[in-house]
C-alpha cells in the first residue's frame, strides 16, 4: 500500500507542545524519511484540538483516525503499521465520540479548516439541513434525551454554569447564570427565545448556522426549556433570511412528527413547542428588550434594565434569551460534558467563537476557533493574509458596535476581556480586515451612517448625537473639516456612550473613538492638509494626466461631466473646475496615465 497518500495532522496547541509535540514532529519526519514516505505523506500542524488531556494528538487522514497520548517511541509503530501496512494502531486510537470531530473527517486536511475547531458549526457543511435523519444519525437530540433521562433541571443548569459558556451574541454574560436566574423565578409560564436577529453589516454567522444545521438550535432551546421549566420557545429571526426561515420551519415540522417537539417529549413529562416570529430587520431589535417588544407586537424599542428579561420578559413572564451560536453549543456541552468544554478556550472565556471574516484577506469565510486564538492566527494562518502584497492596517471586530485595532494588537489572544481591554468588543463575531488602501475616516463614517440610521430614536444622545457625529465625519471626509472637530467627536462620543439606554447607543461611537485613538494622524491629515492617504475620500483627490498618455481617448469617453479634453493621439487634460472626482477616467486608463493624488 505504499502508493497510498496520507495526511497527518499534529496538534500544536500549548498543552500539546508541553507534552512534547515538537519532539514528535522530529521523530515523525525521521521515520518518514527512513521509510521513504516523505512524498506520499504530508505533515501538518493544527491549533488546539480541545483534547488536551489526551494530548499530544496525531490525526491520520483519510479516515480521521485520532491517536492520543502519542509518545516518541510510538512513532515508528504508527508509521510502519498505519502508513506502510495500512493497519491502524488500535491501542492508541481515541474512541471517544466527541460531537465536534465529524466536520474534520471531511474537511480536516484543508488548512483553512484544519486550524479551526468546530463546536457550534460542527454539522454545517456535512449534513443535509433539511433532513432530520441526517441530524439524528449524528447523535442528534441525544443530548436532550440524556438531559431528560439522567439529569434534573438543576443538574442541567449546573452543567451549563460549570462549562463557562458565555453569551455569543456579544456581551458575553455567563449563560449558566442567566439560565439559573430564569429558573429561580416563580411563575406558571416562562419563555425561551432564540435571538436570530443578526444585523451587523458583514456578519452572517447565525444565518449559516441555521441554514446548515437548524436542529441543533431547536435542541439547545429544548434543553433550556426543560432546565428552566418553560413550555414555549420562540425564534426571532429577520424576514430577510428566507432560506433560514424555511429550513427552521421544516425542522420544526419534522421534530414535531418525531415527537421531539410537542406534548410529552420522548415519552417524558416534558412538553415544549417552538414557533417562529419574523422581524422586519431593525438593528435595534437584536437588543433583548427591544426584541421582546417586537414579539409582543409593539414598536421595537429598548427599555431600561433591570428588571432583566429573566425576571420580567415576554408578556411580563420570566424569559431566557440566547443567541443562535449559544444555543448551538448547548448539545455539545451536555453530551461531551462541561469538563471537556472547559478545556477549550482561555481562563475567562471558554469554548469557541465563530467569526465572519471579510474584507482584505485571501480566504474570506466563517472561522470557528477556540477562544485565545490570536488575531494574527485568524488573519494570516487561517485566512491566508492580505492579497496583492498590501500592508495590514487594522481589523474591525464587533461590527458597528466594535472598534478598530491596529497592528500592535495582532498578537492579542481573543477573548471577551482582551478585546474590551484593547478598545474593541467581541460582538457577535463580525471581523473586517482593512489594508492600507482603506481610509479610517471613511470606515468610521460608514459605521456611523449605519448606527444613526438604525437608532430607534428613544434617547436623544443616540438619536441626535450620532447624527451630528455623522455630519462632522462627512465634512471631514469632504475636505471641510475644521479645527476642533476631533475634540467635538470625542466629546460627543463619550457623552453618547454614557447617556444612552441600550447597547446600540452605548456602543455606537466605538468605531469613531477607536479610530481616533489609533489613527488620529489620519483625521488630522484630512482636516489640516486636506489629504486622504488611502486615496479613498473622493473630494480630497485630484486627477491629472501624466506623460504616459497616448491620447487614446478612453478617459474622455467615460467622463460623465465632459471634464476631459484633448485631441486623438495627443496628451489629454482634465479640467479641474469641472471634474467631480468620480475616478472613472482613472479606472478606464490602460496606460497608467492618470495620477490620483
Amino acid at each position, binding site marked *: 500500500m505504499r502508493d497510498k497518500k496520507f495526511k497527518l495532522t499534529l496538534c500544536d496547541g500549548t498543552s500539546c507542545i508541553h507534552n512534547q509535540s515538537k519532539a514528535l514532529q522530529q521523530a515523525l519526519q525521521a521515520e518518514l524519511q527512513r521509510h521513504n514516505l516523505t512524498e506520499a505523506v504530508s505533515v501538518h500542524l493544527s491549533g488546539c484540538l480541545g483534547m488536551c488531556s489526551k494530548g499530544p494528538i496525531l490525526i491520520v487522514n*483519510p479516515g480521521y483516525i485520532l491517536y492520543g497520548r502519542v509518545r516518541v517511541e510510538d512513532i515508528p509503530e504508527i508509521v510502519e503499521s498505519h502508513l506502510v501496512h495500512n493497519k491502524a494502531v488500535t491501542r492508541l486510537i481515541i474512541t471517544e465520540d466527541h460531537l465536534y470531530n465529524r466536520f474534520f473527517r471531511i474537511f480536516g486536511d484543508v488548512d483553512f479548516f484544519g486550524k479551526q475547531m468546530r463546536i457550534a458549526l460542527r454539522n454545517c457543511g456535512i449534513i443535509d439541513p433539511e433532513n432530520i435523519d441526517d441530524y439524528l444519525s449524528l447523535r442528534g437530540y441525544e443530548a436532550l434525551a440524556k438531559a431528560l433521562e439522567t439529569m434534573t433541571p438543576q443538574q442541567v443548569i449546573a452543567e451549563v454554569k460549570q462549562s463557562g459558556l458565555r453569551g455569543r451574541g456579544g456581551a458575553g454574560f455567563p449563560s449558566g447564570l442567566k439560565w439559573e436566574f430564569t429558573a429561580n423565578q416563580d411563575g406558571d409560564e416562562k419563555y425561551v427565545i432564540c435571538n436570530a436577529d443578526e444585523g451587523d453589516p458583514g456578519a452572517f454567522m447565525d444565518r449559516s448556522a441555521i441554514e446548515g444545521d437548524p436542529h441543533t438550535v431547536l435542541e439547545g432551546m429544548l434543553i433550556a426549556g426543560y432546565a428552566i421549566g418553560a413550555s414555549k420557545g420562540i425564534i426571532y429571526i429577520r424576514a430577510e433570511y428566507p432560506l433560514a426561515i424555511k429550513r427552521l420551519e421544516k425542522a420544526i415540522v419534522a421534530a414535531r412528527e418525531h415527537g421531539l417537539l410537542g406534548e410529552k417529549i420522548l415519552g417524558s413529562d416534558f412538553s415544549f413547542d417552538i414557533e417562529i416570529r419574523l422581524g422586519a430587520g431593525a438593528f435595534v431589535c437584536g437588543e433583548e428588550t427591544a426584541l421582546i417588544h417586537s414579539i409582543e407586537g409593539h414598536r421595537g424599542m429598548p427599555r431600561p434594565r433591570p428588571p432583566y428579561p429573566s425576571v420580567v420578559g415576554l408578556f411580563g413572564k420570566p424569559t431566557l434569551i440566547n443567541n443562535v451560536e449559544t444555543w448551538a453549543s448547548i448539545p455539545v456541552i451536555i453530551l461531551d460534558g462541561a469538563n471537556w468544554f472547559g478545556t477549550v478556550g482561555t481562563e475567562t472565556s471558554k469554548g469557541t467563537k465563530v467569526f465572519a471574516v471579510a474584507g482584505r484577506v485571501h480566504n474570506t469565510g466563517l472561522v470557528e476557533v477556540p477562544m485565545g486564538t490570536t488575531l494574527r492566527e485568524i488573519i494570516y494562518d487561517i485566512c491566508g493574509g492580505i492579497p496583492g502584497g498590501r500592508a495590514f492596517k487594522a481589523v474591525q471586530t464587533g461590527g458597528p458596535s466594535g472598534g478598530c485595532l491596529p497592528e500592535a494588537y495582532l498578537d492579542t489572544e481573543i477573548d471577551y476581556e482582551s478585546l474590551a481591554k484593547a478598545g474593541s468588543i467581541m460582538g457577535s463575531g463580525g471581523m473586517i480586515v482593512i489594508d492600507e488602501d482603506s481610509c479610517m475616516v471613511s470606515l468610521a463614517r460608514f459605521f456611523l451612517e449605519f448606527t444613526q440610521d438604525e437608532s430607534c430614536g428613544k434617547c436623544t444622545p443616540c438619536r441626535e448625537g450620532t447624527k451630528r457625529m455623522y455630519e462632522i465625519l462627512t465634512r471631514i471626509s469632504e475636505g471641510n473639516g475644521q479645527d476642533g472637530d476631533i475634540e467635538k467627536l470625542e466629546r460627543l462620543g463619550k457623552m453618547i456612550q454614557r447617556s444612552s439606554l441600550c447597547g446600540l447607543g452605548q456602543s455606537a461611537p466605538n468605531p469613531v473613538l477607536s479610530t481616533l485613538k489609533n489613527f488620529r494622524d489620519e483625521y488630522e491629515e484630512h482636516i489640516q492638509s486636506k489629504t486622504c492617504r488611502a486615496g479613498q475620500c473622493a473630494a480630497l483627490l485630484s486627477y491629472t494626466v501624466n506623460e504616459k498618455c497616448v491620447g487614446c481617448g478612453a478617459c474622455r469617453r467615460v467622463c460623465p461631466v465632459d471634464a476631459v479634453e484633448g485631441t486623438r493621439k495627443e496628451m489629454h487634460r482634465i479640467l479641474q473646475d469641472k471634474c467631480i472626482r468620480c475616478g472613472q477616467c482613472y479606472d478606464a486608463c490602460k496606460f497608467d496615465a492618470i495620477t490620483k493624488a
Partner: protein
Amino acid sequence: MLTPLQAIKKKRAEAVNRIVSKGYLSTKRVYVGMATCEIAAGSKEVMEVFRQAIAKGLTDIYLSQKGCAGRCNLEPTVEVVEEGNIPVKYGRVTPQRAREIVERHLKKGEVITEWVI
C-alpha cells in the same frame, strides 16, 4: 415504554436505515452546498447538473445538499466522499465544471486536482 435515551437510539437506528435505503452506502457520496451564499454563487444550477446525470443513468452515487462550510470565496463547493480516501473538496464549481466532475471523477474516478480546495 422506552426511556428517552432508548427512544432516541431507536430513532437514530431508524434514521440510519432510511439514509442507507436512499443509497448512502453508494461508492461515492456527492455533497453540494445549498446555503443562501452558495445558491447566490450558482449552486442550484450545479445541483441540477448532478441531478440530471443521475436521472440519465449515473448509478452508485448518493447526492445530498449541505449547508455552508464557511469557505465563502470559493463557493459553490462540492465534496465527493469515498470511504477510505481523503474526501475531495472542489471549489468554484460552475455547471461546466460540474459536468466535467461527473464525466471524469464520478464516472472514471479521476480527481481533478486543479479545482481542489
